[in-house]
């Protein structure tokens, strides 16, 4: 479904993606982890071409991203993306945030778009908040609305860029629950997260990145129990063995890449 072949990208002199080759198939849930600045964010942002790449080839759902003839807008409509800072439109209510793209991009009637959006709000457990503005919602609620907004386009792939790292610890689970149920429905998902509990329960594979390289890819169990790489081992022991209440990794600054 998504295929990276020898992808390279530089920011000035700094190489942020080094020779990435990766294939993700339909229905798979992949978790990407690694220290900040490793290029995780950049990697998933190349999938809907929020970040262009300098070398290599990315094929998403049969479309070649490097081909100038590819209709990017149409492709992006098929890829949902959820951001660390939610990025809800502050001047629109929750419902209207969700309705915008189906109405304008898919050309749904207002009635149909409303119906569908309410359905999705119900799915993320926020039917009662449909008329609230983003500022009136908690971080967890905002992120759930953001997920519903992406789902409204009926995407075939969902990308999550640290969806829970801007949230207070007690709000993380409500978001993870929505993501888990989504994974169980068979959605293709690529998730950057350090929530290893989530990874253990739903991920098919875990990718460990460092310094713009994919150091290790493996099945979930393998990565937890017998990571091959020294760096992976160190990182895993850090995120797994520090008591959960400490939540150290939540406080990491936003990835500078």
């Amino acid at each position: 479904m998504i295929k990276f072949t020898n992808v390279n990208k530089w920011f000035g002199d700094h190489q942020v993606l080094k020779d990435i080759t990766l294939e993700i198939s339909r229905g798979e849930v992949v978790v990407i982890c690694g220290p900040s600045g490793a290029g995780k964010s950049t990697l998933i942002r190349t999938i809907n071409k929020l970040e262009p790449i300098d070398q290599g080839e990315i094929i998403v759902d049969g479309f070649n991203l490097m081909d100038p003839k590819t209709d990017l807008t149409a492709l992006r409509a098929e890829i949902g993306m959820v951001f660390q800072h939610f990025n809800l439109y502050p001047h629109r209510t929750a419902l209207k945030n969700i309705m915008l793209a189906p109405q304008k991009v898919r050309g749904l009637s207002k009635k149909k778009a409303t119906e569908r959006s309410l359905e999705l709000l119900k799915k993320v457990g926020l039917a009662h908040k449909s008329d609230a503005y983003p500022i009136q919602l908690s971080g967890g609620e905002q992120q759930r609305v953001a997920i519903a907004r992406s789902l409204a386009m009926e995407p075939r792939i969902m990308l999550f860029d640290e969806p829970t790292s801007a949230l207070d610890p007690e709000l993380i689970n409500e978001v993870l629950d929505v993501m888990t149920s989504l994974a169980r429905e068979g959605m293709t998902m690529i998730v950057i997260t350090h929530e290893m509990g989530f990874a253990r329960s739903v991920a098919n594979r875990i990718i460990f990145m460092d310094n713009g390289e994919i150091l290790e890819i493996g099945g979930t169990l393998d990565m937890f129990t017998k990571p091959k790489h020294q760096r992976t081992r160190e990182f895993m022991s850090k995120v797994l063995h520090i008591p959960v209440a400490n939540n150290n990794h939540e406080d990491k600054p936003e990835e500078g890449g």
Partner: protein
Amino acid sequence: MITGIKVTVLIAVVTSVMSLLLGTLIAVMRKSRITPLRALGGLYVETFRNIPGLLWLLFFYFVFPEILPSGLGEKLNAYIYFPIVASIIALTFDNASYVSDIIRSGLLAVPPGQREAAISTGLSRIQQYRYVLLPQTFRKILPPLGTRMIHNFKNSSLCMAITAPELTWATQQIESLTFRGLEATTLATAFYIVVSLSIGGVIIILEKYLKIDIESITHMETG
């Protein structure tokens, strides 16, 4: 005097609306990926901002008919409403350059994540501006935009230089015909003050009305 007020209001309202449209267009042009469009927008703003509005008025009134083919130019000069039309054109162009600068700074202040969110749900560039970026921008720039519109309203007084029969022109007519200019000028001054302060008041009320959104905009990126 009453006609003067009518003409002043006409000029101010028409130029405000048109310069808002033109200014938005120029601001979006200046953020375009296409270099010639960007350069054109930049050139427009620099040209109109660095030359006084009065000069543009004189230009559109005196010079513009001259550089047209002769028949057309004479027709324009004979047209009795030409001073008003020239005023509207000149002030619109002048004001649009300031408006576009205000809108541009507003656009720059919308967090980049907003645009990314719009892109990743598949909105086209026009839709991004129409539904996501510009609505937020206008809520943010309301105060400076209001100040600019007050300025534009006051600038309509310059149109007297090209004999557009607006309020200030009327006071000077009264002065030279009846020598009762003091009363007329006092009334005109009062009119300008009342209208300017009312526009300011309306802006403050509007701003309060939209406060929910404005607060949420400022809080978004810190969250």
